[in-house]
């Protein structure tokens, strides 16, 4: 019932186009995460769904009805703002209950919902404080609580966990996932954090310069990025890219890199390409294809290590290795990968697939 449809939605601020034709269908109960670099339009798109920004062009539908002209209050949404937007003169308790008070719910019910949310968010000892007397993380939790108590069909979150420490962030992430499982509210969630996006999302929407770069499940985006931008954006540390040239030789294609030539199954495309390999897909000392490399730096992360390698031309790549490999900076080694784990992008940065794949 409360799915969201964005149909060729455009947002202009004067001459500046900030959202440039976004098409997206969000199913009821789905958890969709918007990611993208700062300034790409995530908040703007979310605010358009909320009704806080006018839609310059295109159509927004919620539960199948056009919403472009509907005021925010009538869209049945709850939102957590990037800037918290708490009422500075009210204590936490009133901040949480204000919307319910306005909706004229019985006082007992308000108290029950507020108490429950406060306990759940671990702010029940702060109910008498005003926002100015709270830390950033506490304010953020109050903001989440204020959205929770309203029990709406549609949740909008704008970077709700950005000010929490790592522990609390993980805890809240789990809680948000749990809330979503229980309440089944359609959720749109903006974040910078890959981990949040990967763990929470049913589908991730990667935005770039006001357009959708790719939509898909977290694993789809990770395994089959549609373009070089998404490939670089999803995954941490980011994917390594090496320039190369793809030529046809009979029933095969040949990829020439600075460090050698590699036979691949046939591609329709020929010309300049970039080869993308994730750090975790690089294998020290083996693989279908290999390159000579000089070890620049080994960063131990505990269970695994990041090995920075120079592969000639001053190009450096990063490999992720299990444990703590027995290599020292300055040493020469061989680094390789399996063809099935490699990504190719054409000169327009679109992903290339072998013929028939």
């Amino acid at each position, binding site marked *: 019932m409360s799915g969201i449809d964005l149909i060729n939605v455009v947002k202009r601020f004067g001459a500046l186009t900030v959202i440039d034709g976004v098409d997206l269908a969000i199913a009821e109960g789905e958890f969709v995460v918007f990611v993208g670099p700062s300034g790409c339009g995530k908040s703007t798109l979310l605010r358009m769904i909320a009704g806080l920004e006018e839609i310059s062009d295109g159509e927004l539908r919620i539960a199948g009805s056009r919403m472009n002209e509907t005021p925010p209050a009538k869209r049945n*949404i709850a939102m957590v703002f990037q800037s918290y*937007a*708490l009422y500075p003169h009210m204590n936490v308790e009133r901040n949480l209950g204000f919307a319910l008070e*306005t909706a004229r719910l019985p006082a007992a019910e308000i108290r029950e919902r507020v108490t429950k949310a406060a306990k759940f968010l671990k702010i029940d000892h702060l109910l008498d404080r005003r926002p100015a007397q709270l830390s950033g993380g506490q304010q953020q939790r109050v903001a989440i609580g*204020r959205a929770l108590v309203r029990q709406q069909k549609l949740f909008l979150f704008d970077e709700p966990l950005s000010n929490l420490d790592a522990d609390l962030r993980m805890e809240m992430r789990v809680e948000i996932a749990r809330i979503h499982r229980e309440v089944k509210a359609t959720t749109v969630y903006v974040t910078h954090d890959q981990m949040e996006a990967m763990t929470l999302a049913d589908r991730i929407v990667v935005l770039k310069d006001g357009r959708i770069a790719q939509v898909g499940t977290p694993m789809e985006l990770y395994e089959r990025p549609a373009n070089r931008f998404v490939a670089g954006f999803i995954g941490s540390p980011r994917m390594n890219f090496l320039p190369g040239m793809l030529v046809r030789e009979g029933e095969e294609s040949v990829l020439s890199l600075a460090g050698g030539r590699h036979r691949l199954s046939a591609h329709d495309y020929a010309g300049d390409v970039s080869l993308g390999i994730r750090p975790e897909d690089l294998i020290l000392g083996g693989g279908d294809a290999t390159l000579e490399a000089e070890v620049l730096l080994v960063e131990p992360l505990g269970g695994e290590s990041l090995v920075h390698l120079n592969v000639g031309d001053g190009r450096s790549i990063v490999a992720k290795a299990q444990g703590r490999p027995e290599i020292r900076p300055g040493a020469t080694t061989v680094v390789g990968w399996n063809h099935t784990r490699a990504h190719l992008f054409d000169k327009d940065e679109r992903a290339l697939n072998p013929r028939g794949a």
Partner: protein
Amino acid sequence: MATGAIRIGLNAKRARTAWLFLAPSLLVLFAVALWPLGRTFLFSFTDAFLTEPDIYAYIGLENYFTLFEDALWWQSVRNTLYFTVVSVSIETALGLAIALLLNAHMSGRGFMRAVILIPWSIPVVVSARMWQWMLHDQFGILNHVLKLMGVIDHGIAWTANPDLVMPVIIAVDVWITTPFMVLLILAGLQMLPKSIYEAASIDGVSEWRQFTALTLPLLAPSIAVAVLFRLLDALRMFDLSFVLSSNSDDTKTVSIYAREVLVNFQDMGVGSAASAAIFLMIAVVTAIYVTVFRLNRKLLGV
């Protein structure tokens, strides 16, 4: 312990520097305000006359008895309080309304903001004279317009009619000082975070409730300061009444009363007593106002 000691040292040093910077202005303040004030209090206990201010004797509270037995003094106190309460109330309500209007996003509001300041920028005596002419019973534009519109057939003596003169003075004061209110309240309005209104609008809070539950409480400190300024100003109002209706007992303010005793009757003793009483009256009103406001804030949790 050690850091505590350092912090205290730092604060003490800061305080010393602050006093050093404040000293010149405190000195000037003492010379131009406290000294004359002290002299006024002193003279209020003497029988000095303006003709020979150096020859006087202390007569205790006698001047105050004289003052408090004068019906005209009490009438001017009533006039002043009436003028203050009515004009400041109207100015606050009107100022708030106009500020809200100007704060709404509408085209040409920068221009409006500049235009609205004009009445405030004109010296009060000039405004008063201007209004005196406009309100003139024979040549005034107001009567002329009313006659043209057929509302009246004889010119109304706006400033001579004892029933009309106070409302007229209040109206002119409202015209002059509402811009000041608008400006102070507008400044307060523009400090309010926009995002809380967005949150409220999503949460289904009506515009009226946004106004009463968010805007008013958050604006209260700004309004309180503006009202306090106006209160102090109105309590010692002199020029408007003096120009528009100098001899009428119906609009005599305490400041005019004090001047009259001092200048017209040359009675420095009673004049000083009146001035001292005015000072005390303003001090008491301010103290009550500030206390009530503080208590209110505590109750509201603002």
